[in-house]
């Protein structure tokens, strides 16, 4: 028996932006196991080298490319290198994020820094690679937002912990979700689909969140638990693949039902 051929990324060249965090590393493993030729674009090659080596040793195709998404020249150079080495670009995953703000009362310089990467860098990346895929005849962009681009913060989750929520994140992720619709409309006729995945809270097994936070968080999802980082890849692969050819502009929450109640 064969699995459905569409829900995999065989022969597809995918660029993933941001790969060093908890979710980023899980996405690298998921996309590589779905048989993508995966280029991970990051500021930090050293932090990714051992993961890429391990994936390559397992027979999967993972390459690292150092990139600065706040520079259009760096993005164009990346596009040209990938096209030269792999011949085409079938999809990108925008998982890069910068979190300079810690709280509501931080200096506005930190807000501006956040915009530089999360707004301007995000838009520049979508434009450079959206244009490249449009020219090529089609492709798929998958942006990684958050439920915090959909709903406000529930401060009671954080009471009594040293955890906080920063305002720039809500602005950027909300903007990402609606810019995804704009881009879906802009690139639709050129067969570039643009969608967004909005994960809920992801449990961190290496440095676990505060115990009282986890207990409270589990109660606000329908499935009664936090997300495992490995559970986001399925949605991303689906939206990159030829299994979702009539889906564009959609926001797909991977949140255990949090935003549905």
């Amino acid at each position, binding site marked *: *028996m*064969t*699995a*459905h051929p*569409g*829900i*995999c990324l065989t022969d597809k060249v995918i660029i993933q932006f941001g790969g060093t965090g908890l979710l980023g590393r899980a996405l690298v493993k998921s996309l590589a*196991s779905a048989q993508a030729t995966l280029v991970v674009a990051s500021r930090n090659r050293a932090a990714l080298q051992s993961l890429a080596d391990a994936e390559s040793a397992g027979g999967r195709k993972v390459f690292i490319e150092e990139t600065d998404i706040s520079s259009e020249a760096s993005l164009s150079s990346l596009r040209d290198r990938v096209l030269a080495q792999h011949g085409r670009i079938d999809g990108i995953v925008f998982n890069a994020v910068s979190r300079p703000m810690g709280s509501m009362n931080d200096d506005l310089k930190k807000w501006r820094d956040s915009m530089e990467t999360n707004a301007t860098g995000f838009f520049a990346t979508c434009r450079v690679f959206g244009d490249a895929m449009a020219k090529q005849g089609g492709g798929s962009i998958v942006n990684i937002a958050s439920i915090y681009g959909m709903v406000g913060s529930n401060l009671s989750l954080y009471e009594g912990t040293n955890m906080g929520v920063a305002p720039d994140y809500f602005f950027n992720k909300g903007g990402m979700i609606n810019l995804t*619709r704009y881009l*879906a*409309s802009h690139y*639709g*006729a050129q*067969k570039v*689909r643009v969608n967004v995945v909005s994960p*809920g809270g992801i449990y961190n097994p290496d440095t676990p969140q505060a115990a009282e936070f986890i207990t409270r968080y589990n109660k606000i*999802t*329908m*499935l*009664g638990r936090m*997300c*495992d980082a490995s*559970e*986001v*890849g*399925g*949605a991303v*692969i*689906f939206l990159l*693949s*030829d*299994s*979702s*050819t*009539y*889906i*564009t*502009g*959609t926001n*797909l*929450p*991977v*949140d*255990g*039902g949090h*935003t*549905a*109640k």
Partner: protein
Amino acid sequence: MKRWYSLEEKTIWVTGGAGYLGSAITAELDQVCKKVVCFDLPGKSEALVRDLGLKRTVPLSTDINNAKTLPAILEGLLTEHGVPDGVVHLVTASSSGKRLEELSPDEFQRTFDLALTPSFILCRTLAERMKVRGTGSVILFSSMYGVVAPDKSIYHAPMAPNPIDYGASKAATLQMARYLAMHYGPSGVRFNCITPGPFPNKAVQRDHPSFVQDLTRRTVLHRVGQNEEIVGPTLFLLTDGASFVTGHSLVVDGGWTIW
């Protein structure tokens, strides 16, 4: 290691499995599942299995539209076929086909009686059995017209605009999926909706080109959907690739509702 998208040990029930969207889903599930149980109007499932040479699909003509007789019918089916791992419930489609000014109370009520109450009984009965096992995935089918109102300007006489009872029942289906997801989530049973956009069947595509052209203009992909494009979303929601996705309305509409 089995891949996350593997359904090879799963039994899936598909209601309305021989219709335009359903037949594409049933045909693919037949290739990748252990067993498919396909429900449709008398003779339709049998014809589908015969015409496509399906090997793992059990065709049934069982009437599942009567909420009162449904529990006993389902118990018999569960005994014969076991508790399904997943359910693709397309039979929520019902429509008076009437213009708003001509729609009688009985016709309005009939749509709800056919679309909603049997769906609730079916979902509850099967989910109660799935929850014992702690896993399951149920997909209901809504519509873009359960999310946005129809554009009257694309329906030219004698064609009536998509009727109010249809859209209202599809909106109710979305909410029912969310409620069921909430109720059964702690038991590991997931409920989601697929919310299709314009998927006119092949006959409409052939016989009404100007209508199809109007549908096309409302999407950002500049085309209507083809029934094979509903298969991938269905497989995704059935598999462990969607293990943290529940209560969601997965919109498959070429961008119809985004602008």
